[in-house]
């Protein structure tokens, strides 16, 4: 597995999720800490494109060999894209949690909601 890392340009949710916000659309995924706690991910169950997600509530499930975990949405909005490649390569969530392991893209309902998330240093300090 990759070394622990927490990119500066991301926003972080206390449930160990990240968001990369770009012009009203955010990409979501789980942090290095989350994938390490999960262990080897063997299955990603994505939500439907077009469904809505609410900050703080789960929108997808990931399964490692031993357990199932819910993935929490850091922000609210409508899902516009899911990472279908994870169906065949769920291990990307472990190997590249901020890149190939991204989970969904969401058209944000309220861009100002992002102000409630943590920056990198605050999140890392909370670990």
């Amino acid at each position, binding site marked *: 597995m990759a070394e622990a890392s927490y990119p500066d340009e991301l926003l972080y949710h206390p449930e160990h999720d990240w968001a990369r916000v770009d012009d009203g659309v955010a990409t979501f995924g789980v942090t290095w800490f989350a994938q390490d706690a999960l*262990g*080897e991910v*063997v*299955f990603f*169950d994505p939500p439907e494109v077009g469904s809505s997600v609410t900050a703080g509530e789960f929108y997808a*499930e990931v399964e490692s*060999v*031993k357990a*199932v975990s819910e993935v929490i949405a850091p922000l609210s909005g409508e899902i516009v894209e899911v990472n279908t490649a994870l*169906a065949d390569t769920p291990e990307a969530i472990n190997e590249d949690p901020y890149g190939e392991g991204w989970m969904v893209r969401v058209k944000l309902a309220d861009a100002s909601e992002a102000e409630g998330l943590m920056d990198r240093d605050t999140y890392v300090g909370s670990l």
Partner: protein
Amino acid sequence: MPTPTLKRTPLFDAHVAAGAKLVSFGGWEMPVQYSEGIRAEHDAVRDRAGVFDVSHMGQVQTSGPDAEAFLQHVLSNDVAKMGIGGAQYSMLCNEDGGLLDDLFTYRLAPDRFLTVTNASNHATDFAWISERSEGYDAQVEDVAAQYAMLAVQGPRAREIVEQIADSPLPPRMQAARRIILGREALVCGTGYTGEDGVELLLAPDDAPAVWEDLLRRGVVPCGLAARDTLRLEVCYPLYGNDLSTDRNPIEAGLGWACKDDTGFIGSDAVRRARQDGPAQKLVAFKITGPGIARQGHPVIGGGEVTSGTMSPSLGVGIGMAYVPAERAAVGETLEIDVRGTTRTAVVAPKPLYTKETDG
């Protein structure tokens, strides 16, 4: 919440040193995986060799002139068929045929046997067995503290252990005393992974040196998680998942390990279940689409999943489930309620994995 005191095996420090993630299992603090991860451990056992610390498993020794007759009374298999150095798989049943445990027994001498118990059942197994020995000239002893146990498994396991043994290892389903790395050991040609290999019973103080030596020879340390995926791929039942006192050996597909004519405790109930046919049967399944069914997930129309995982060797969700007997045939389609989502599975032949199905 108070943390119960967990027992540690003689290899605890070695597990920590090898980067193990430790979990509570059957009253023991055991490695669930090491730093390389479950898939690497699983593949090591399928392709080369891995070693599991199974020192949490218990041992009961039965000896004396009536040892054979007594074990014939409590164990489901035909104990008299076991030659010296033989090994046998059997069930421990209650009077109703309910499963108390599934066990390997080794005949060490004409009048001396060693039975290996599951960790979580050891105390109750020992109590059950010893309480029923009255009237037999046999001594039943809890000898679990005298043994550490290592399972060395995989196509290269035997050849690697043989490098540190004083003489060739006993064949499959046989047990013999050997000197391993200068230490007394009982070597058993058994295991629970579907691969060739041996299990080593050693004095607790001797176990760390043997463990370290095996690791130096390239044997990969493996935890409980890989043990579970390996055994499930070959459909070996796990007590507490697939077996319980609510199930009898016939339902579990273990009628072959029950010799009703020996008159073992529970044999009448097992015979009846055999004649009448069970209402439910333990089947193996493969998920046909995405998803993984887990223990406790209901089978729609009756029954439930007792074990489920993502198969590292097959790359699909697999498992075992009790289903109504009329739906237990290979090829039957099952629908499983996986946390509110219906997943489709097909009943598949046991074992789910063989060398031929690999890839």
